[in-house]
């Protein structure tokens, strides 16, 4: 078992970093540790969307590019540092769409160089993606044109789960996108609320909710490790705190003060 800072040290500068969506086990404690370690030039992939984690990493200057279907704080509004960075051009943006990101990871999961996806044609998303390719129906069955999405292999993916066992098996419940992320990524770093001694693979019921340990590079304990986001059946999102972030991050100075307090300050030292 590692600690959170050791996990943060396993994310190299320049890595392509996959982040799960807001409702799916986002490892905020680890994200704060990444900001503390002053990681640089991350290429963020949101799977398929993200909010607070991506926005904080962008605001803290850790990010070179973002590939996303959306970055949003949900009910708290726009992701202010994301919007500012894209408007200013200080972060390179690769717009995508939810199923294209799932598809690109599934291609890596299956070890194929691409997968087809319907829709997309006529969208300016496609028109700005020279890595995506439109082909005529290669089976010649009258299907018409279709888009091929190249495989994406993240260097590192990070998630926070309620539970792991001593063999590194990790509970993911019905958040099956986490399995696909894990299958596709070269390195998977996991923080958990707790460890249990009994194997999660010991019975069929818990095995159904489990990511096998052989996809997991390292696991560290992080109590309340998704806060201020929520963790299903464990704690709700702290909507006041997220709204406070949204307000503070409207300006660079406000963001800096927020990060100083929550990432570098006394509040963070307790993590």
């Amino acid at each position, binding site marked *: 078992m590692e600690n959170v800072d050791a996990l943060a040290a396993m994310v190299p500068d320049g890595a392509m970093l996959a982040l799960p969506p807001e409702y799916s086990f986002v490892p905020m404690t680890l994200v704060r540790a990444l900001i503390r370690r002053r990681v640089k030039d991350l290429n963020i992939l949101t799977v398929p969307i993200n909010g607070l984690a991506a926005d904080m990493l962008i605001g803290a200057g850790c990010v070179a590019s973002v590939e996303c279907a959306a970055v949003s704080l949900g009910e708290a509004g726009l992701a202010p540092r994301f919007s500012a960075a*894209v408007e200013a051009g200080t972060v390179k943006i690769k717009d995508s*769409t939810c199923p294209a990101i799932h598809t690109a990871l599934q291609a890596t999961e299956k070890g194929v160089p691409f997968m087809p996806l319907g*829709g997309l*044609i006529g969208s300016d998303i496609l028109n700005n993606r020279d890595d995506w390719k439109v082909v005529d129906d290669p089976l010649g069955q009258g299907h018409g044109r279709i888009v091929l999405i190249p495989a994406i292999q993240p260097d590192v993916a990070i998630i926070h789960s309620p539970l792991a066992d001593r063999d590194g098996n990790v509970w993911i419940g019905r958040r*099956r996108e986490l399995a696909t992320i894990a299958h596709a990524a070269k390195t998977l770093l996991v923080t958990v609320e707790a460890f249990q001694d009994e194997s999660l693979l010991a019975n069929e019921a818990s095995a159904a909710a489990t990511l096998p340990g052989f996809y997991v590079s390292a696991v560290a304990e992080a109590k309340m490790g998704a806060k201020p986001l929520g963790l299903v059946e464990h704690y709700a999102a702290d909507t006041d705190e997220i709204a406070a972030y949204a307000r503070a991050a409207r300006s660079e100075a406000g963001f800096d003060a927020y990060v100083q307090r929550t990432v570098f300050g006394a509040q963070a030292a307790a993590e």
Partner: protein
Amino acid sequence: MTYSRDEFLITAIARLLEGDDVRHVAVGAASPIPGAAALLVRNLKGGSPRVALIHGKATNPFTDGGREIFDAAGQGRIDVFFLGGVQIDGEANLNLVGTGTYPNVDKRFPGSFGSAYMYFTVPKVILFRPEHTRRVFVPKVDFISAPGVSDPDVERRGGPKYLVTELCIMAFDSARRRFRLESVSPGRTLEEVLDNTGFEFDIPDVVPETPTPEEDRLSLLRSSVGLEVADTYPAFARDVLGVAA
């Protein structure tokens, strides 16, 4: 019975969901008005259509992760979906990315989400944007997140069918690539719609008024259906429907 704007919009959308072709309605994140409309119709019709509030819990039937709703749409299992837009133009093109010149737009919004796919695969997409202004309804969007119409050599079984705003309801004709005004909200006028729409659209000789909320439906919204809404949108249920979770 008096009613709020949101209650009016809920019942207006609900009327578009009552046909037998609507077996499965999916509603994206943070969409309490379409969500409440779908739950209302399910209640009225005794369990059909199925309703998937994607980030709901008890009301979220998905167990295959984030891709399942897109897969289900690809399988033809989702009949209705809702989309909005920072900008929407007269050919029903949607912009969810930002205004100005891409990529470093003047004002960046979250992004296209699944629109570029769902718009092609769900037969009945209802565009929902309460704000009806020339800022939203533009002659031509700055960025096409999802196109309203497609060439014949592009596989497309889905697309825009209706546009619901606080001012009016329009229907979309894919073949003619144009919206057609269906009805105007009570107390609003055709002139207001024209003044606040930046694109041309067809206008019938007689423009009906969108019905006011039916009393039995308002009652349901403020009681049993409101409780179901509260399961996913507690703040909305409390503030708009007066129902505590």
